[in-house]
Each structure stands twice: as structure tokens, then as C-alpha cells.
């Protein structure tokens, strides 16, 4: 059931300790900073977080990690020049890491939303990231068995939502949003604009409203030219 919510605090209020949370974004593009800040304020802890990275600088996901709220990260690229909070927790043995090739991360999230119980992919075959995994020779190649990544909640940033929860995104900020919205039981979306039903062209909708549970408008959140791009 779709609801429009006034504040990011109310939007994340139901998130329970121990939840698995998908967070959209690749680097800063598409990262729902305001929802992450609200999640930090909510006090929810013991979280498993699915994101491409493991936080940058002193904001967003990086702060959630710094404050010890994240038990486990599932991501493809945790090591960045400014991922110091993850680095510290990881070296202290205080955070678990499931490192996943980026394409497997995307495909496993997609599989969860599409009801696929597992799939074979050539990516990772013969590498340490496939150690212990089932392999099979298919279509002329050795392939590795990978399983879906489900989540309780997805936090996503989109450009606009209409009154049915249909979403459109902006440029490369689209990234993980559409597949995470489908993979999570409950998806919470921050948008910069809410438009009337019928204002989005049905041909151009990227995430149909069936995948959207909560929408909150965050003023200025589309202002993508602002701020620093790390």
C-alpha cells in the first residue's frame, strides 16, 4: 500500500533492528542522504546494508557505519580514498563484509525482485570470490551459482513520483534504484517532486508504483550540481 509521508523521520520510523536495508546510489549519485540521516537518527541498529560502496567521507552511510549500526556490508567496492569509517571498523573486526562483483550484486538484487531462486553466471569463475560456490559448464563456459539478495527495506532517491508512486530518475542517479525497489519488501523513496497522477508519460516510467510503498518529498534533493562529488 502506497503512502505519502511528510518527513524522512516518519518514513523510516518502522525500520527494525536487525533489518536488511538496501540503499540506492553509486557514489553520491542517487544516494538518498536525507533518508540515511533519518535512519541514523532513528537509532536502528544491527543492520545489514546492501550498497555498491561502504560509505564515503563523513556523511550518509559512512556515518551509519561509524556509529556502529551496521553489522554487515554487502557491496562491491568498499575501499575508497575516503572510506575511512568502513576501513577502521573492518580492520578492527567490527563489521562483516560480503564482497560481491558489481554485476553479480545488481543481478542478485534483480533476481530477488523477479522471483528467481538462483542463477548461473560466468562472472567470478576461477576467482577467490567464487570459492566454495557451485559451478557448472553452461553455454560453453564455466559458470558460478549465485543467489538472490532480498531486503526488508530499500531507501531510494528518485527525481519525481506521481500520485500512484510511479517513479522517474535522473541520469546516472538511476543506478540501483529500480532493482532495489523491486527487491525489498518495503521501499521508501525520497523525491524532489511529487506530481499528479497522469503527469508522467506511461511510456517513460522507470519504476512502476507497485514497487513503491512510501514516498517523501525532500526539498532540493535533486539539486545535483550542489555539493562535492567524491
Amino acid at each position, binding site marked *: 500500500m502506497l503512502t505519502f509521508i511528510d518527513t524522512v523521520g516518519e518514513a523510516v520510523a518502522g525500520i527494525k533492528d536487525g533489518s536488511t536495508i538496501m540503499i540506492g546510489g553509486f557514489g553520491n549519485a542517487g544516494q538518498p542522504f536525507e533518508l540515511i540521516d533519518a535512519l541514523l537518527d532513528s537509532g536502528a541498529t544491527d543492520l545489514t546494508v546492501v550498497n555498491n560502496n561502504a560509505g564515503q567521507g563523513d556523511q550518509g552511510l559512512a556515518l551509519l557505519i561509524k556509529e556502529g549500526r551496521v553489522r554487515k556490508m554487502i557491496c*562491491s567496492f568498499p575501499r575508497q580514498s575516503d572510506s575511512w569509517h568502513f576501513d577502521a571498523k573492518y580492520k578492527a573486526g567490527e563489521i562483516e563484509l560480503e*564482497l560481491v562483483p558489481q554485476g553479480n550484486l545488481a*543481478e542478485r538484487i534483480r533476481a530477488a525482485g523477479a522471483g528467481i531462486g538462483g542463477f548461473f553466471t560466468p*562472472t567470478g569463475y576461477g576467482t577467490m570470490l567464487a570459492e566454495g560456490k557451485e559451478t557448472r559448464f553452461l553455454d560453453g563456459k564455466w559458470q558460478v551459482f549465485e543467489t538472490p539478495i532480498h531486503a526488508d527495506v530499500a531507501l531510494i532517491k528518485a527525481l519525481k513520483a506521481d500520485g500512484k508512486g510511479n517513479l522517474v530518475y535522473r541520469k546516472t542517479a538511476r543506478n540501483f534504484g*529500480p532493482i532495489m525497489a523491486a527487491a525489498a519488501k518495503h521501499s521508501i523513496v525520497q523525491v524532489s517532486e511529487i506530481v499528479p497522477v497522469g503527469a508522467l508519460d506511461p511510456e517513460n516510467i522507470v519504476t512502476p508504483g507497485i514497487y513503491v510503498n512510501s514516498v517523501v518529498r525532500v526539498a532540493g534533493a535533486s539539486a545535483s550540481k550542489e555539493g562535492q*562529488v567524491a
Partner: protein
Amino acid sequence: MSTLETSLQTSAEPLGRNELAQLVARDIAPGSFVNLGIGQPTQVSNYLTEEQNITLHTENGMLGMGPEAVGEEIDGDLINAGKIPVTELPGASYFHHADSFAIMRGGHLDICVLGAFQVSAGGDLANWHTGAPDAIPAVGGAMDLATGAKDVFVMMTLLTRDGVSKLVEQCTYPLTGVGCVTRVYTDKAVFLTGPDGVTVRETFGCTFEELQALVPLPLKPAVS
């Protein structure tokens, strides 16, 4: 491409980084769809010509990526896989991450160009992890690129700072992909890798024999 091969031949000097990028750019067939990895491979885009009509893919969700953005062009919602602000060319398209990696994983990219720590005689690639016990591992899209593209070109210096060949019989660093590399562009030579072993297409600043002395595996000179 055969005209390029005969025109380049052996040169008197090793190639600089820009010359190497230029060489790779010239070897990309017109109309190709290409993904350029983070770092040195990104420089290849500086030497692609309009006539080549190359379409660049960035795995964070775009085909038709243009040059790095400057000044007013900078838009935080438009970045490449290295998280650098870029621009959009006419005819570009955006898609989500699973669709973007499907382009790569489904074998639709003609070429990807990657850096490497090591490449083996059989085309194994090691470019994501030093294997050091205290290193934080980070793989990104490297394994998908290595496995998915029709051709994987590696750009690297032939030797480490310590003078050890990065072209090896067997990789000692953790692998990114098995038997995936088809060409290796280095400052001293261009190598073609495949099931028949390693062929040297051209040398820069050294003879074939001098090159063979640097590399601990049997090389074959190209037959034109």
C-alpha cells in the same frame, strides 16, 4: 586493423602513457561499443576520433558517455564508474544497474580496456586485489568486465618498479578472470594472448630478443 599493424612496426623508443593510449584508441574498430576501465584506460578516450564513431559504456548506467565535465557542465547525477563527472553525447541512453551489467555480461560490448597487476600466458587477468592480508578487498565491476566483453585489452607497464615482468606464466595475484585477456598493450610491446600462447605484435624501444629476455615465458613474433 592490418594497415595499423604494418604502419606501426617496431619503434625506437618505449611508448609513453599518452602514446600507449593513442595506440589503443587507433586499434579500436569503427562503430565499436567500448568500456574503458578506471585509471589509465580512461585516457584512451582522449584519442578516439569522431570518425571512429565509438560509443562509450559506463557500468553505472549509461551508453554514449562524453568527455569529463568541466565548469558549469559538472552535474553530480552524471558520473562515470570512477565517480568523475562526465558529459552526455547526443544519442546517449540511461538504464538501471542490472540492465547496464547485462550489456556487459551478455557479451554485447566489443572491447573493454583494463589495467592489470598481472596477465598470464593464457590470458588470465589479475587486477583487483594485491592479496595482501591486511588489504581491504574491492572488486567493483572488474570481474564482469573481464568476463563479459568480446575482447579484453589490458594496458600496463610491462615491468613492475622492481623490474619484474607483469606478463607471467601463471598469475600469483588473485585472479579477476580466467583466459579473458586478448591483447596486452605495454610500454615495450603489444602482445596477443590466446590458446596458442603469446604473440608479439610490435615492440617499442627493444628488439624481439631483448623483449624475450624480460619476459619469463616463450614469445612468438607476429607473422604478417
